């Protein structure tokens, strides 16, 4: 582009003299603009990654120091020791994601198409819990699900807990300190991550498409199936990713709402790193978690497609 400009004969001599010659610097501008982002990634993503990768193949102890001995067996040991927690993390995060989608889709739909002048208010209500800390929100569930509380009382009267007990999701007539409580906590804490992307992609849908579908004698259900749902898929995909990824690494919910048989991989990493001071195993587990998430997400995206992921 710049070369054509210089080679082109000047239309008016005087303006050609005034025009500054093409600056070589200009070509570098995009890179300069990229610089902050790249630096950020280098310092806060790549370097910690390299450091973690290095830690995971070290051996040693706090007193003796740690040396890189390329001890890859740590990975295998960690995986064979803690695979149940891995499986559990994926299961819990998966269940929470599905629940989030089931709860979040109707709500996002409501906000996008039916809320009218209440739209802003409802959106704020969705985000409002985020004004308090993650910890407080999770602790609130201890009160909600307390053994003697109304929720557990009602579930017991309706014999719902007999069913969940039989499924192994609760223990006896309580909900706290069971897998169900952990999944509830995860669902609640990550629900806005599902609702907001869903809302953005639903809100973008042109209302006239619905009218057109109606004009073509589509029932409301067919309109939803053939028009709304396909157009909201980018929201579904990004919403599930934004929910599943942090949920599978979470450890607060399992810690506060769970028991010994609900510990997730995040708890194991925390214990290894802070309590047992086995930094290599903690680092290896972190990498395995990343790999597991990457695998699940890749499979999911291949299945659902990312053409117009928000």
């Amino acid at each position, binding site marked *: 582009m710049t070369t054509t400009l210089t080679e082109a004969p000047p239309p008016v001599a005087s303006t050609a003299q005034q025009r500054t010659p093409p600056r070589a610097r200009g070509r570098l501008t995009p890179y300069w603009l990229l610089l902050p982002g790249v630096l950020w990634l280098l310092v806060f993503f790549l*370097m910690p990654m*390299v*450091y973690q*990768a*290095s*830690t995971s*193949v*070290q051996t*040693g*102890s*706090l*007193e*003796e*120091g*740690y*040396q*890189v001995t390329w001890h890859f067996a740590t990975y295998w040991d960690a995986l064979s020791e*803690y695979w149940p*927690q891995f499986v559990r993390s994926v299961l819990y995060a998966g269940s929470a994601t599905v629940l989030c989608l089931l709860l979040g889709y109707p709500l996002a739909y409501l906000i996008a198409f039916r809320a009218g002048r209440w739209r802003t208010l409802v959106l704020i209500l969705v985000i409002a819990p985020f004004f308090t800390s993650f910890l407080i929100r999770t*602790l609130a569930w*201890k*009160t909600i699900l*307390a*053994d*003697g509380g109304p929720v557990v009382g009602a579930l017991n009267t309706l014999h719902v807990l007999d069913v969940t007990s039989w499924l192994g999701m609760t*223990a*006896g007539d*309580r909900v*706290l*300190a069971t897998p169900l409580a952990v999944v509830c906590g995860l669902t609640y804490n990550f629900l806005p991550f599902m609702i907001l992307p869903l809302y953005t992609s639903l809100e973008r849908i042109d209302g006239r498409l619905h009218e057109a579908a109606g004009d073509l004698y589509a029932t409301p259900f067919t309109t939803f199936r053939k028009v709304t749902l396909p157009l909201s898929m980018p929201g579904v995909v990004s919403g599930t990713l934004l929910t599943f990824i942090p949920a599978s690494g979470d450890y607060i919910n399992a810690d*506060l709402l*769970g*028991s*010994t*048989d*609900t*510990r997730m991989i995040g*708890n*194991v990493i925390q*214990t*290894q*790193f*802070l*309590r*047992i*001071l*086995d*930094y290599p195993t903690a680092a290896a587990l972190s990498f395995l978690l990343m790999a597991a998430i990457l695998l699940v997400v890749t499979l999911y995206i291949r299945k659902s497609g990312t053409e117009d992921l928000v």
Partner: protein
Amino acid sequence: MEQYQPDRPSPALRAAARRSLSGGRAALARRSLLRASAGGALALGGLGTLGACGIPPAGRSRGGERAEDRSAKEKTVAFSNWTEYMDVDDSGKRHPTLEAFTRRTGIEVEYTEDINDNNEFFGKIKPQLAAGQDTGRDIIVLTDWLAARLIRLGWVQKLDPANLPHAYTNLSAQFRNPDWDPGHAYSYPWQAVSTVVAYNRKALDGIEVTSVSDLLDNPRLKGRVGFLAEMRDTVGMVLQDMGKEAAAFTGDDYDAALARIQKAVDRGQIRRFTGNDYTADLNSGDLAACLAWAGDVVQLQADNPDVGHIVPDSGCITSTDVLLIPNKARHKTNAERLIDYYYEPEPAAELAAYINYVCPVDGVKAELEKIDADAANNPLIIPDRDLAAKSFAFRSLTSEEETAYEEKFAKLTGA
């Protein structure tokens, strides 16, 4: 209680003197220098290869543990403590005992409550201490086992006995000479914490709880019993209950205790292993009975008359939270003066009246009676002879034991 005799060095003082002769840091200077240069060479190797990223030994910090003591020039001291571990006036913003200290000495105290968890705090200060840098703190408060680790690693400074006359005189006999810091060369207790069995009378509904065995075995308490995620407290209490000594147990004893807890976990007897959050569960009755820290129980009882506690006949585990001066702290003398100040009966009583933990200072009872007679007669704050006899410390562990035991205990609690 041994009497303080000014003309004859106390046992503590003698132990401190012995240590300074035999365990001097000078002998280690060359080794740490070698390590430092090795570390430098590794760093020069470049970040590109993973091989260059080895973590240097955490041992003795390079460049010595002392920094220039600016106490005389800068009348300030930075004190890091746990939350709610200091007296507060009615406005909730000022700390009367600290202010009295400032008035008397002119030393300004930068008081921060930034310690929430021993393990987390260790993770936080480790990089600086390992690298031989100032943490920005002159005094930190840590639980004894972590203090033992820091002393083992050489990350805290030896205290100067000359600045601690009250501390030497007034430290209760029960807390003298712990095996991890003989003669208190590096640390002084801030408060002590006893682990007891607490219960919610309403939730118990007539079930009698008198021992740790009841928690582990009574089928009527299934799923409503809590133990502490702090390994030493839980395993120590179970060891005592089994007739072993927490202060002197073997590896087999430890495994036997874990096997006993594991059985209770497998049966669904134990609801959770908790940190401080058991207080909410006990208050609501979700936990009918649990292991609990005495200071919490005193505070809970004030709000909820259903909450009670017992000290099992087999005894209770008492750990201490101790004051330490980390390496490179810049106001060591000021820090020592502050430590000593809290060993005077008056400030110690004022503190004890407010925070309700076991006070390690002798001669506090008379002072405390003036402020709060109930507290003065509460054995959980001023231990009586009976409780002192039933208090046991968990023995200190070697670094290998610590790793192995923590790992086994982590498996027990679900990893």
